[in-house]
């Protein structure tokens, strides 16, 4: 099975940075700008590691994860959050089983790759 990485972030510079870092390291990646875009990809059959921004307009990262779980789209995928926020949102408490780790912004390429290397292995 080909394990992909999806970056979900409304900031185009983040999507571009993650794309460059991960493609340079040999990963297959897709980038979407919203929670809705993430759901669409999952419904199309995406299976892999999802790097999810927290602060997005209309549907934030937590609402997106809740929607993923509601639609039964979580199975086999792994989610790590991308966030600049230091204090965790209370919404995480109800979704804690679905979030493996955080990548704090701004991140170095080493920090991003450390998380990706660790958690891509858990994708089923």
């Amino acid at each position, binding site marked *: 099975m080909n394990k992909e990485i999806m970056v979900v972030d409304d900031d185009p510079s983040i999507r571009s940075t993650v794309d460059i870092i991960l493609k340079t390291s040999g990963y297959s990646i897709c980038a979407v700008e919203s929670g809705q875009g993430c759901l669409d990809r999952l419904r199309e059959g995406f299976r892999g590691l999802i790097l999810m921004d927290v602060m997005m307009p209309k549907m934030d990262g937590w609402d997106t994860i809740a929607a993923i779980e509601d639609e039964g789209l979580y199975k086999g995928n792994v989610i790590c959050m991308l966030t600049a926020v230091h204090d965790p949102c209370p919404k995480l408490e109800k979704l804690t*089983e679905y979030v493996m780790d955080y990548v704090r912004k701004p991140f170095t390429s080493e920090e991003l790759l450390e998380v990706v290397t660790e958690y891509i292995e858990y994708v089923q």
Partner: protein
Amino acid sequence: MKKRNIVIIGISTGGPKTLRGFFDGLPLLDASIVLVQHMIKCANRSLCATLNSLTEMEVKIASHGESMKPGVVYFAPSEVHLKLINNKMIQLVESPKVCFVRPAVDVTMKSIRKTAEDNITGVIMTGMGMDGTDGLSYIKSIGGVTFAQDEITSVVWGMPKSAIKTGKVDYVLPPEGIRKKLISQLGRLPG
């Protein structure tokens, strides 16, 4: 009579990476360890296998009805709570979530009985929410030793912070500090 050592660890977001460092090179301890990691089911076996390859202890997914032995880490399976009967036999139960999670380390810790034969240790590491707060207080109340991970090293300082606020935590340490203390307190089995 030689006492049994029982350690219960609760951990959540940030756990897999934290546990990899914690278990890397961990010697064969004279203890039964129950590990409750909040995690979706499909990732259980991968993490369990990874940890098993890193430590001299045997790391396995806990089975219903199994009796705990020293030198083994029992990884609580997802979607059920893990209780201990008479501090020895593992019972997996499908009761409602506690603190929004299942397995909840509160359930495991509060299933422990106070006995003269057992040394009990509770550890709460990185994660959001309050799972482990009541459990750690309970362990302290029955004479056990309690640890919480410090803020600097926690990916999410929710569970440890909540436990520390009770005033019932003996040690607030980074993972390597917790590990060092446990090795010192528990001792090793002959390899």
